[in-house]
């Protein structure tokens, strides 16, 4: 192994610039002559939108231009496209209403963009926005999904069947019905998966720039996938060919899904930059982020699990309402369907599963993927239901899981809900977690807490997820409107240094280090000789970006494939130089040797020869050493694991503290253990945040009640403990590195572990379930028999 290669906890290459204030985030850009855009947003959740008078605003100091939906329409600008189509139960297409860049005729959620004011300074743009004359008439609004389904409810979009976007199902309803007839017991649950806001610490920003000389547009943007933005914005919205559109996502301060989508502001600044002949910059304020970044989760579910007399799961049926918000965000329809219902087997052998999912339009911000995307919703449902089943059966919570695990010798395992898991060992991760958490010693800790007047509980969750998104042919058959491969270009320079151009994008994941380790391992080159470039569509051949824990399983495999080609060609050059047969060339630790001789050439010598081809087989081989590979995965990858949470509740205040958290995950082969642990820490913190603190709340009129950090409780340093994390891996069987993915596991496995622990702590209070977030108010209500507070 190279010292800095696979498995080494290498310190990150990217850290120096971030630690010294030299990061280059979109809002840090100051393009020559740039003007500032302020987006005027609806304060009503639902209203008709008439004429917008701009005359006064246009005369205000510093104002450069004011644009409305009418101006976009005059330029034939398209709506924001949705990248995934779902079919209803009867085979018909989902309701897919238009999503205008700036609202036309109607606004449909608080924050819906109405106009843009461009001025010399942001302050001037904001001042001028006050002078717009906007003719709006408020309409009744609906924010709650159950209300939205009632007859006579306000309709968000005309032209469909009420507020239903699609009515979809998966699985075998007859088999499930038959199994329920034979059931010894049925465990039931009604639950809410709370709406969340991703809240990457860097607010979204975009700068558009038009080059009059070349006719090229550049969009600098806070994106996880710049090529996807170029494709969607160029082809569907602005009608600019890729050849004249550059999208560059420089350093991005966290994404967690919220920076996947193509947003209105990107199109606005790009289009407006040509209109006003100057670069145009827009940066969200945090309160704007709450009103305009796609939200996550937001399910209401009823589920039932049938068990036989030994506690074996016979069948599962699930009925879910999923909130789409007011418009379809880029990947919204895929999240509660193919990233949720397909995971309902979990780690268990449940033979029959049937899920129905209704997606609903409401007068709220659009909902799309947020770290985990569908899989946390599935894991939460299953792991809560399994605990309830254990209680119904009078069985131990560990034992019921063990009894139903897919055994480690059953892989590849075909679930009844479409996925085929390639590898896993759920007993191994559970055993590892039980040990690391000192599960055996828990009752003593509970007794000790009791002496201190605290209620202590412990909760387990055992989960699997599907990531490494995604095999294009499968995704296509399920409604994806794009391919989901990845691209890597390995450019060896004449003096032997190397640049990797990757279509994935790093916004905290440490790709500049992890990918460099892959290259160091393979080519025997020092890390200081390797640079990783991402984010610029003018440099990188193509790419689908970073989400769904795909950067290593898909992006990393593309790097390996490109390296294969590099080594292949380098061997040919070495064979020529050393006058040997290609088959006799060996490559190890950066040296090419001829088997059975002491002849050797270094990697650097080969690189130089490739670019200075004086002694070179020019008749058979092109000069240069620069290879590109596209890799389309054969299957998803299936990380899994066991999370154990221990909480203490103060019955006086209802405050829950996580006192121990243990995660043992199977993420496949680990390239950099330091980075892997960091990813788990971050995911777990977000999962604990969902379980105990975070909640995005709308009132009945569609007003957002949690629109700032004063109201939306982000987990802070003093809310969390240090975590115990470890891995117990099995290798992915269908990619060359054996890697699975780690970006989302923390956020998937942890919420049910926390809530299972809270319910355990409250077991003497007759609680079966508590919805997230388990706030002090709810818990105090439960302890004190106050139903209203308990239900809040």
């Amino acid at each position, binding site marked *: 192994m190279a010292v800095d290669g696979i498995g080494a906890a290498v*310190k*990150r290459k*990217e*850290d*120096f*610039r*971030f*630690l*010294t*204030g*030299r*990061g280059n*985030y979109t*809002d*840090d850009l*100051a393009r020559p002559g740039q003007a500032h855009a302020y987006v005027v947003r609806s304060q009503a959740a639902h209203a008709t939108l008439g004429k917008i008078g701009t005359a006064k605003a246009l005369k205000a100091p510093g104002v450069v231009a004011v644009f409305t939906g009418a101006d976009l329409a005059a330029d034939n600008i398209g709506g924001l496209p949705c990248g995934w189509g779902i079919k209803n139960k009867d085979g018909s297409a989902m309701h897919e209403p238009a999503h205008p860049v700036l609202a036309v005729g109607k606004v449909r959620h608080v924050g819906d963009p109405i106009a843009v004011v461009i001025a010399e300074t942001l*302050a001037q743009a904001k001042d001028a926005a006050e002078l717009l004359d906007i003719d709006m008439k408020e309409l009744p609004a609906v924010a709650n999904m159950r209300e939205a389904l009632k007859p006579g409810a306000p309709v968000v979009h005309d032209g469909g069947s009420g507020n239903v976007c699609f009515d979809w199902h998966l699985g075998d309803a007859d088999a499930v019905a038959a199994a329920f007839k034979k059931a010894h017991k049925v465990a039931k649950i009604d639950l809410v998966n709370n709406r969340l806001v991703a*809240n*990457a*610490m*860097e*607010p979204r920003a975009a700068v558009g720039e038009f080059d009059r000389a070349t006719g090229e547009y550049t969009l600098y943007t806070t994106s996880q996938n710049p090529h996807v933005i170029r494709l969607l914005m160029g082809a569907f919205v602005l009608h600019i060919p890729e050849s004249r559109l550059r999208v560059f996502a420089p*350093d*991005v*301060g*966290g994404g*967690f899904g919220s920076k996947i989508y193509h947003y209105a502001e990107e199109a606005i600044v790009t289009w407006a930059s040509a209109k006003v002949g100057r670069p145009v910059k827009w940066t969200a*304020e*945090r*309160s704007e982020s709450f009103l305009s970044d796609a939200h996550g989760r937001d399910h209401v579910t009823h589920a039932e699990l049938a068990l036989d007399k030994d506690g074996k799961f016979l069948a599962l049926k699930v009925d879910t309402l999923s909130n789409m918000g007011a418009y379809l965000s880029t990947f919204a329809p895929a999240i509660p369907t193919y990233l949720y219902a397909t995971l309902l087997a979990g780690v268990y052998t449940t033979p029959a599963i049937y899920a129905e999912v209704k997606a609903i339009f409401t007068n709220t911000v659009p909902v799309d993927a947020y770290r985990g995307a569908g899989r946390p919703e599935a894991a939460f449902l299953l792991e809560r239901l399994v605990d309830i089943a254990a209680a119904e059966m009078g069985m131990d919570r560990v034992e019921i899981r063990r009894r139903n695990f897919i055994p480690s010798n059953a892989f590849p395992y075909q679930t009844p809900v479409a996925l085929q898991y390639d590898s896993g060992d759920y007993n191994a991760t559970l055993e590892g977690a039980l040990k690391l958490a000192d599960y055996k010693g828990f009752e003593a800790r509970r007794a000790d807490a009791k002496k201190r007047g605290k209620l202590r509980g412990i909760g387990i969750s055992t989960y699997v997820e599907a990531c490494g998104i995604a095999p294009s042919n499968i995704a296509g058959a399920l409604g994806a409107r794009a391919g989901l491969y990845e691209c890597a270009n390995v450019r060896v320079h004449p003096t032997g240094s190397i640049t990797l151009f990757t279509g994935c994008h790093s*916004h*905290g*994941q*440490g790709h500049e280090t992890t990918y460099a380790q892959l290259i160091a391992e393979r080519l025997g080159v020092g890390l200081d000789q390797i640079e990783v470039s991402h984010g610029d569509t003018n440099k990188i051949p193509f790419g689908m970006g970073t989400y769904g824990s795909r950067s290593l399983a898909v992006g990393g495999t593309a790097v390996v494939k490109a390296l294969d080609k590099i080594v292949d060609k380098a061997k040919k050059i070495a064979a020529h130089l050393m006058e040997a047969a290609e088959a006799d060339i060996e490559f190890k630790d950066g040296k090419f040797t001829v088997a059975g001789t002491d002849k050797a050439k270094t990697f650097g010598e080969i690189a130089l020869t490739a670019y200075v081809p004086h002694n070179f087989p020019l008749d058979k081989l092109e000069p240069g050493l620069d290879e590109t590979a596209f890799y389309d995965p054969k299957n998803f990858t299936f990380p899994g694991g066991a999370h154990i949470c221990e909480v203490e509740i103060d019955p006086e205040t209802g405050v829950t503290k996580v006192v121990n958290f243990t995660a043992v995950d199977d993420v496949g082969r680990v390239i950099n253990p*330091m*980075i892997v*642990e*960091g990813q788990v*820490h*971050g*995911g*777990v*913190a*977000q999962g604990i945040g969902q379980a105990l603190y975070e909640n995005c709340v709308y009132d009945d009129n569609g007003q957002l009640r949690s629109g*700032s*950090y*004063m109201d939306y409780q*982000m*987990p*802070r*340093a*003093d809310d*969390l403990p*240090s*975590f115990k994390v470890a891995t117990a891996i099995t290798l992915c069987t269908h990619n060359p590195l054996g890697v699975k993915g780690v970006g989302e596991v*923390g956020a998937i496995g942890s919420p049910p572990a926390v809530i299972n622990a809270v319910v355990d702590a409250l077991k003497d209070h007759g609680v079966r379930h508590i919805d997230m977030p388990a706030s002090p108010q709810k818990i105090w209500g439960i302890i004190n028999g106050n139903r209203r507070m308990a239900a809040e």
Partner: protein
Amino acid sequence: MPKVSMTVNGKNVSAEVEGRTLLVQLLREKLGMTGTHVGCDTSQCGACVVHVDGKSVKSCTMLAVQADGAKITTIEGLATGNDLHPMQAAFKEHHGLQCGFCTPGMVMSAVELAKHNSNPSEHEVREWLEGNICRCTGYHNIVKAVQAGAKAMAAAK
């Protein structure tokens, strides 16, 4: 427009600002020092923390005119050339950053803690950083980094 003068990372600077201009806007927009970040509009996140006369301050919560005559240190002023300040080095060593957006504020807050307390407990670090939000790291490695950085700062004295 009022004119303000101050030293930023040891250099004298002066600029004309509006009365409503925030210190962070002066730093980022007028002086082009973009290491200090803005993560919220309610003084909650701490991405904007700088030192004003040696004390950590949320620069989104102070008007530029209030900083007239002050000595400001930002994240750009901590390292000496390519040599990281001990607290910066500890963040790198302990993987106390991922996307890097909260990092300048975290490091500046941590440096002030270390000045008061060269051996902070985990609890003390977590309490101190309560005003700095990080969405990436779950704080686990930030806590380790701050403890190590505080010790290293004491040792370097």
